[in-house]
């Protein structure tokens, strides 16, 4: 019931905003998102942390939607989903507030779609039914499409279409994979048709009995959809464009939550559904992540559009996140989930800050902007702060997750199968960390690259001699626009950033509650992999024993 | 001709020496191709329709021959349907032709090229 309310609340307010007078639109939107935030906090307080791996708040008798296909509107959150729901509801008011003065045209449309988007995103995290999940997952595209194509900057049409088609194409393939799993589940025992079900839990146990070949195909299909959303290396090109063209709130949501839909789906579906295939292909996915980390990072370094820079940095950051996820061990997955939240906060905040500058100078080019520290010291302080959070400075949130992801990758190879290595003529690690350390080391180079491009950005934008766009400098001497924003941040803008900054510090200094809360669900996910590792089917017994025997002989 | 009448009245086919199914099919194919060529080359709408009727004829011959070959009557039955379609087509198409002719005072099919949409 609580979760239903959490989804319906923004929808309700979307309706109100759509039909209320335009001058009240932003106020109503703020009220709606704030109420959702309060409700989210209430859900969080009601959550039974002792059973964090149970999906809670689901109705005892879920609303039956389409009995013939076994479709239910069943909802429920475990601690992982709850974290992401909280992130979503937190970013809600922030997105409304950051558009406060920036959006002046078609205000009602804007805010109502923003609220619809929030409802859809909440739905994704709360869904316990594959089809409901998928509907919400896809439905996020429509509001986002509208936000980009109506409120974006110059190249917005192309960006919106590309964003929509790219992610849509991918997720249709993922849907095919999910339906295949459901179809498989109808006939698991004894080949008799048992009726359709799309319950995630039921499909999870059914899917695991698939053969490796089937699992691999499903993995491929799911990756095709979710990797686009994440986005992983070769399918990332929609992201920079979409980020660059989207309005500030759109960028914040895109970086903060929408990308997490992909990683969350990887966590929710790929890992539990097709473990054997994941074990086989995790190294391959890891390689893609690493390519994304380095490639994305280096591309950042040569950008002149600051928003594009941060967008490409998302490609690199999400590479860390997925790398941790596919490390298939507790540290890696914990780190990865934490990364989802942290990236949402720090990159979201960076987009906010860039949006604030854009609102003042109407340019994002680092050639036209520089040394803003002398004009906007408060902005500069926050900019440096969030850059450092993004770089992964210890004591701030980014570090904890980044380190855990890398540590997970470092220890990963014991969990990985021989699929890729076998084809290269290599044997997977007989001891933990034969190849994982190399993954971690190469990915770790990404930390250096991250420092390179983010400091390059700060060096251009914040430090150095003051550079302002010529047109703007001209304006400054002429008649001041009475509605123009003051040079430095307004209290509203500072108020937006402070909660995020506080969370960044909080999660960096005292991440223990979150880490503890994540353990039960993560352990549950891992348990199957440990089982798999201990089962004879995948253990590379012969080489391992061989190697240890040799060691034993070599010792004396 | 008496032979033929006997044949018609005998109730079942008499043995037809020297003619195989292939003969009929050849005739059918040749007639079809004639109709096709006519359709492709003639520009008069009415003649084009006649050509389609020619192709219908060819199909009818093939159908009846096959029915005869398989010793059933489906082929003949389907000729009835062909007749139906031909009649319907004649009614509709000719009505259209008349309509079109009224518009442009020409039966040239190429005059209506701009109907491509």
């Amino acid at each position, binding site marked *: 019931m609580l979760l239903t309310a959490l989804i319906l609340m923004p929808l309700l307010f979307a309706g109100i905003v759509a039909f209320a007078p335009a001058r009240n639109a932003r106020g109503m939107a703020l009220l709606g998102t704030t109420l959702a935030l309060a409700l989210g906090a209430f859900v969080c307080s009601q959550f039974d942390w002792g059973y964090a791996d149970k999906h809670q708040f689901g109705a005892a008798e879920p609303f039956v939607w389409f009995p013939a296909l076994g479709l239910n509107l069943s909802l429920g959150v475990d601690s992982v989903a709850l974290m992401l729901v909280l992130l979503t509801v937190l970013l809600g008011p922030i997105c409304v507030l950051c558009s406060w003065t920036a959006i002046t045209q078609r205000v009602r449309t804007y805010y109502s779609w923003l609220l619809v988007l929030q409802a859809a995103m909440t739905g994704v995290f709360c869904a316990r039914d594959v089809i409901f999940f998928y509907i919400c997952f896809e439905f996020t595209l429509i509001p986002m499409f509208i936000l980009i194509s109506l409120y974006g900057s110059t190249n917005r049409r192309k960006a919106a279409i*590309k964003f929509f088609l*790219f992610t849509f194409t991918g997720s249709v393939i993922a849907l095919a994979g999910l339906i295949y799993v459901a179809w498989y589940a109808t006939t698991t025992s004894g080949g008799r048709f048992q009726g359709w079900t799309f319950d995630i839990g039921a499909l999870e146990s059914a899917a695991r009995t698939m053969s490796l070949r089937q699992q691999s195909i499903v993995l491929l299909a799911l990756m095709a959809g979710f990797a686009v959303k994440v986005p992983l290396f070769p*399918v990332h*090109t*929609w992201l920079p464009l979409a980020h660059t063209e989207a309005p500030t709130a759109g960028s914040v949501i895109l970086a903060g939550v929408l990308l997490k839909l992909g990683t969350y789906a990887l966590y929710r579906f790929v890992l539990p559904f097709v473990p054997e295939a994941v074990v086989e292909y995790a190294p391959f996915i890891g390689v893609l992540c690493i390519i994304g980390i380095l490639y994305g990072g*280096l*591309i950042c*370094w*040569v*950008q002149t559009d600051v928003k594009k820079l941060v967008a490409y940095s998302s490609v690199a950051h999400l590479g860390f996140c997925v790398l941790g996820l596919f490390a298939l061990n*507790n540290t890696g997955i914990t780190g990865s989930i934490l990364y989802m939240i942290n990236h949402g906060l720090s990159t979201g905040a960076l987009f906010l800050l860039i949006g604030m500058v854009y609102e003042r100078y109407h340019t994002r080019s680092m050639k036209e902007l520089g040394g803003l*520290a*002398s004009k906007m*010291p408060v902005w500069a302080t926050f900019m*440096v702060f969030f850059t450092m959070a993004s770089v992964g*400075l*210890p004591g701030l949130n980014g*570090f904890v997750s980044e*380190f*855990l992801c890398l*540590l997970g990758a*470092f*220890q990963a190879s014991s969990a990985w199968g021989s699929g890729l290595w076998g084809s290269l003529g290599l044997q997977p690690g007989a001891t*933990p*960390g034969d190849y994982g*350390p190399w993954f*971690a*080391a190469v990915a770790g180079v990404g*930390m250096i690259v991250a*420092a390179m491009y983010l*400091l*390059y950005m700060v*060096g251009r934008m*914040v*430090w*150095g*001699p*003051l550079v302002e766009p010529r047109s703007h400098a001209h304006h400054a001497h002429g008649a001041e626009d009475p509605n123009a924003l003051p040079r430095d941040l307004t209290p509203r803008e500072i108020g937006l950033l402070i909660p995020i900054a506080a969370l960044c510090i909080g999660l960096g*200094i*005292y*991440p*223990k509650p979150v*880490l*503890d809360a*994540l*353990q039960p669900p993560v*352990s549950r996910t*891992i*348990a199957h992999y440990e*089982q798999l590792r*201990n089962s004879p089917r995948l253990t590379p017994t012969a080489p391992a024993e061989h190697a240890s025997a040799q060691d034993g002989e070599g010792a004396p | 001709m008496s032979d033929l009448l006997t044949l018609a009245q005998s109730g079942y086919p008499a043995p037809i020496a020297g003619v195989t199914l292939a003969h009929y099919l050849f005739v059918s194919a040749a007639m079809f191709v004639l109709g*096709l060529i006519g359709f*492709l080359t003639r520009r008069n709408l009415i003649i*084009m329709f006649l050509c389609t009727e020619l192709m219908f004829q060819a199909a009818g011959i093939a159908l009846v021959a096959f029915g005869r070959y398989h010793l059933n009557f489906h082929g003949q039955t389907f000729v009835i349907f062909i007749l139906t379609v031909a009649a319907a087509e004649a009614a509709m198409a000719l009505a259209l032709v008349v309509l079109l002719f009224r518009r442009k005072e020409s039966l040239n*099919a*190429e005059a*209506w*090229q701009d*109907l*491509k949409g």
Partner: protein
Amino acid sequence: MLSQEHITGHAATAIDEGGMLTMLVPALTILAVVLCGLFAAMRVKNKAPAFVTVALLAASFVAVLMTYLNLGVEKTWIAHGFDWINFSWSGSENRKLTTHALIANFSFYLDGLTILWMLFVTGLGTLIALYASEYMSHDVGAGYCRFFAAFSLFVFSMACLVMADNFLLLYLGWEGVGLCSYLLIGYFYKKPSAVAAAKKAFIVNRIGDLFLALGIMLIYTHFGSLEYTTVFAQTETYIEALKEGNLEVIPATVQLIPLLLMGGAFGKSAQLPLYVWLPDAMEGPTPVSALIHAATMVTAGVFLVARTYPLFLLSEHALPAVAWIGALTAFFSATIGMAQFDIKRIMAYSTVSQLGYMFCGLGVLTSVGGAFHVFTHAFFKAMLFLACGAVMHGFAGQLDLRKLSGVGFMRGWKVTTVAMLVGCLNLAGFPIITSGYWSKDMILGEAFANPHTQAIGWILLLTAGLTAYYTFRVFFRVFVGPVQYEMGDEHHGAHEDAHGHGEATHAPAHATHATPHAPGWAINTVLAVLAISAFAIIPFTYSHGGWVHTMIEGSTARYEGAAAYLGHGEHAHGTFLGFEAHGALMVVSGIVGAIGIVIAWWLHYAGRTTAATSRADALLPKLGPIPRWAQHKWYVDEFYDFLIVRPLWVLSNIFHFIDQYIVDGIVDLFGAAPSLTGKAVRPSQSGELHSYAAWMAGGMAVLILIVILVAT
């Protein structure tokens, strides 16, 4: 082979809970940061931030001192603050339930090493903050707050680094000091060179940090813990095995750990090949150079090696590598230092060089020597920097030794000159009366005492001579000789005050700073205190480290004299040209230092022709291009730029191109496929009935052809 007698490890020291007083240090420093932030928000325009910082840092120093006096260093104390990254999970390994944990708490590990480092970090921090209160006075306002906030944050980070009881908290401090270094180097953020230097420092440090992080991961993977107590308890067993002579029991992974940690240490402590950031870091305000880039932060690498000394002892190659790289860095940077004209840069290169000494000390197994040199160096190098800073402050940023002369004979510069002289004597290793002499001698003696490291010893000895020369080159050029000077072109940091009617203030500023102004009471006091303490520590420490020895004795770096791999058996028989090494070196190093000073005197004082030129200038052309190369820092920056930065830049551009036109191009191609296909086949939609029919017939023909081909 390894024999037992050479491992003189103590039994594991007792570990106890306690020392909560030290928690005051991070608390007070964070309080200082917050207060400075508040001052900035309240637009305070006086020196309040400085005094708050000085007071809180002094309180921190007192807290550390109290802890030392109360707890002593016989035992190791663990002070638990709060849980930081701390979670556990259960798993199953071969059907057995196992429990794993990743524990990195905000807890402090207090042993002699920690206390020693914390004492001089907080002590020097307080003094330098006091110095800075005057030095930075032209910037009172937002910049002043920013400076002291970062300054306090640095002390906080350094405290975490030094007192951490686990590797992750150490890493926090490690990166934290990097951040503060970044912020403070870039303090004059309008100067592009300062911004670039800050960026360079951070990135080069990050390279080192990557190695450190990998080392930490390997430690966790191998030892299953990040806490010192657990890790060192396990190294203890390896050491026991070493005593038995079982070299083979130590896995290769464990031997790899110190090599990775070493990478981190070399990044932070500016050793080859990662030293390039430190000279550039002199773009920061001088107090920063003194505290961070001379006395404390750069010794973090040395601290790391000392802290993880047990791990280094387990590796065959780690300590020799440390020693060799240290020696080469010492020599290499000394050669650069000889050819520089910017006095702050000379000091920077001498810092790099002295850090090399410290690593050598650790590498040749005198961790006490290393720590001792860190300790003495912290005082005299801070003093040197502060003296240089006073000059820079007084002469509007003038740092070129060719444009300054006879400063010591000017009014109000006495204290500065004396302090400078004391610092130079220490750095040059003037015999007996300087603490620098004693600490340097300890390292040299140990290097020669071991036959395997005698080559290192010779390099160090040569470097000692060079050091004495370039140190006194500065002194003779700048502080004595004819009084002549040229003002610098900087107006107190090139940092306009925060109100921002920027350019207009330039011209008047020029006029007001046309004459040098002598340092005030704060600077003089600090210089005096440091100069006195540089002498005062001699009695406590001259004999084999003395007090420092007792501090190290109970710490993780305690394996003094233990020759795990470096020339084990014959250790005791190492000699200096047939004499007993330690004794001989006391004489020889003194002589070498004196020779260096005399040469400097002959070239730069006795041979002084004008303020700008000296006998050295006449001699230089005879050496061919070498002085020019040295002046250009052996073109190392250009080399890196050419070999790493440029290719990476080109590669990035190539990637960007690929991303835009190939990866995205393929996507666009897929997107454009429908419309392209439509364009291609649109002509067939002619509206000609005949052509449609012909296509139909042709299609039918093709279909039949396929049927025929397939059927046959």
